[in-house]
């Protein structure tokens, strides 16, 4: 068991592509850290640098107290689970699991004991004599896990281990891997492009974009206090609504102007964004999550704005409304986000041909008609403010 530390790590490939720049990150002993980001953001490269499968261009990576830049994979005492499992097709499940131990010349008794322990933990006992091709996807995934845990390494590295499973199995394995990691207490770095996996599994989540680490925080903090526009747009399904807006003075308070409506921000309610007063008279980007948009009739004392309902999807427990309000939507390029709805995917109302730019959760069974105007109120305690130029949160 050990902590993993990135210090000013760069990765430049031979063809000049900079995959990771100036990455500094401390992963604590026993922590489950998820690296998340759209494809091509450098998360897998970062993981492979820890594994020793990719050379480090500059900076240092250390495992425990030891800088591992010049160590080969086998001397780093790590185990890796690959997306396609990389099971050896010519070996049985037992031999697959024992492969690393055999290479380390462990005694026969120890190998047998360890394999049985891992197989028991992963419910693989009945399949030990089978070949990988005779197993289901979930079983193969567990064999890959078994191969990783059996050596009891200092660090687990997992590269999108659930992407090849169907949705139902993925949810199940998600919980199994989380439990296993808690049980073993081994430091784990888990790479995924699926933000649901990131939110549900990680002790902390590190969001990456274009090779740069954007924010590292526990899942809830990431959701509540995104450090910049990218994180705000990437984390959360549906993604946060982001609009061009303006900060203005409002008597003693400050207010944000959205769609022509001045929404007053009581001083005690914008504690998350202390830099807000500096932006009076300037344009900013306002963010509001779908669940913080309410029907005005349910919040009669809140300032309300008018939107036209383009589409209403009833989910049973709630309804998702897609509205158009008179404001400019800020689109964040978070391509390849898994299940999230991207701005260009928002449904359009063909009859009146207006583009919806705001997503809101409404209570179930609330009667609303598409194509009509709806009064909505924003929860001023949960608004997010970002610098229009830099995209940084005004914290």
């Amino acid at each position, binding site marked *: 068991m050990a902590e993993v530390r990135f210090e000013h790590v760069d990765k430049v490939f031979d063809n000049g592509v900079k995959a990771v720049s100036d990455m500094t990150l401390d992963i604590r002993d026993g922590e489950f850290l998820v690296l998340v980001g759209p494809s091509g953001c450098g998360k897998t490269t970062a993981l492979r640098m820890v*594994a*020793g499968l990719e050379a480090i261009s500059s900076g240092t990576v250390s495992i425990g107290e030891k800088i591992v830049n010049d160590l080969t994979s*086998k001397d780093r005492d790590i185990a890796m689970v690959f*997306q396609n499992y990389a099971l*050896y097709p010519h070996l049985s499940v037992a031999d697959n699991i024992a492969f690393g131990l055999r290479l380390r010349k462990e005694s026969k008794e120890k190998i047998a004991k360890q394999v049985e322990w891992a197989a028991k933990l992963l419910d693989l006992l009945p399949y030990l004599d089978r070949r990988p091709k005779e197993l289901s996807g979930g079983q193969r995934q567990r064999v890959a896990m078994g191969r990783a845990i059996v050596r009891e390494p200092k660090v687990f590295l997992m590269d999108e281990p659930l992407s090849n499973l169907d949705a139902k199995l993925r949810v199940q394995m998600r919980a199994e891997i989380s439990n296993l990691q808690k049980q073993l207490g081994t430091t784990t770095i888990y790479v995924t492009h699926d933000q649901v996996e990131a939110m549900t599994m990680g002790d902390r989540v590190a969001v990456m974009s274009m090779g740069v680490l954007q924010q590292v925080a526990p899942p809830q903090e990431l959701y509540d206090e995104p450090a910049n526009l990218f994180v705000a747009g990437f984390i959360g399904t549906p993604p946060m609504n982001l609009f061009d807006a303006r900060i203005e003075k409002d008597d003693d308070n400050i207010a944000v102007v959205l769609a022509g409506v001045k929404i007053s921000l009581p001083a005690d309610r914008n504690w998350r964004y202390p830099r807000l007063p500096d932006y009076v008279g300037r344009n900013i980007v306002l963010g509001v999550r779908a669940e913080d948009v309410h029907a005005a009739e349910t919040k009669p004392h809140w300032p309300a704005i008018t939107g036209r309902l383009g589409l209403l999807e009833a989910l049973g427990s709630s309804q998702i409304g897609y509205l158009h309000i008179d404001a400019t939507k800020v689109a964040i390029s978070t391509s390849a986000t898994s299940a999230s709805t991207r701005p260009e995917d928002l449904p359009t109302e063909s009859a009146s041909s207006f583009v919806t730019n705001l997503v809101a959760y409404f209570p179930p069974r609330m009667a609303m008609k598409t194509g009509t105007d709806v009064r909505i109120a924003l929860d001023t305690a949960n608004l997010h403010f970002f610098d229009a130029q830099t995209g940084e949160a005004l914290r």
Partner: protein
Amino acid sequence: MSDPTNRYNDHWWRHLVVWLAVCVAVLPPLYVVTAAFNADQTLSGSSLIPRALTLENFKGLFVQKEGGAEVFFVRWFRSSLIIAVLNAFFTVFIGALAAYAFSRFRFKGRRMGMLFLLLIQMFPGLLNLVAIYLIVLRTGEVVPALGLNKLTALLVVYLSGAMSVNLWLMKGFFDSIPAELDESARVDGATPAQIFWGVILPLAVPVLSVVGMFAFVGTLNEFITASVLLETVDNFTLPLGLQAYVGTSYEENWGSFAAGVLIAQIPAIIGFVFVQKYIISGLTQGSVKG
């Protein structure tokens, strides 16, 4: 008259083509078989159905007749087998090592090397004969074992012959083995050599057996290079020796020739039986996939 239940009526011409093809393919070997058992020693006099059957031709290959010439058949057979086995083994071994490097490592000259090998393959082997003769002649002055009339020299020449096409075949197959397997083994603690022996080679058995089989059969049947390099009858390989039965003036011995040919085919047939399941999969996987 078209009767949908009787497809023979519609497709009789296809059967005709099939049987024609079978006849064309089968007749020559059939001739050899009957010649081997025919009591007559002349080709012109022999017919497809021999007038008298005999095993004398086979016996003559192994037992020296009283007052007759010395019999080398067993010796030739042994030489051919040894050379074929060694050639198959080394072709597979050296080829697999090179193909692994070309498939997995990125080094200066990798592309050039592959292209160059392909280019070499485009020249017909016959063009090299003069050069090979001269090279072996000169090498023999320094290293006698690699000189003319030496089986070791022949083996070395054979090894160089089909290496490039085999290498491409194996590289194509190795490329279809996911690189994650190598990486996974590396993380598990395997050295490149352990990855090669423990992971890649076991998975490449189909292509290795195909390449090995072709090298084996090819060597067993090779005539031209052997005829240039080997000089004395005691050093001959089987094809050369068999040719001697019919190549000498006034003393053509077609019966012995045919009997020898039949026996010579046995190792190849056995080999094909063992690897036939891989031949299709090995060829398609190596060349189409990846």
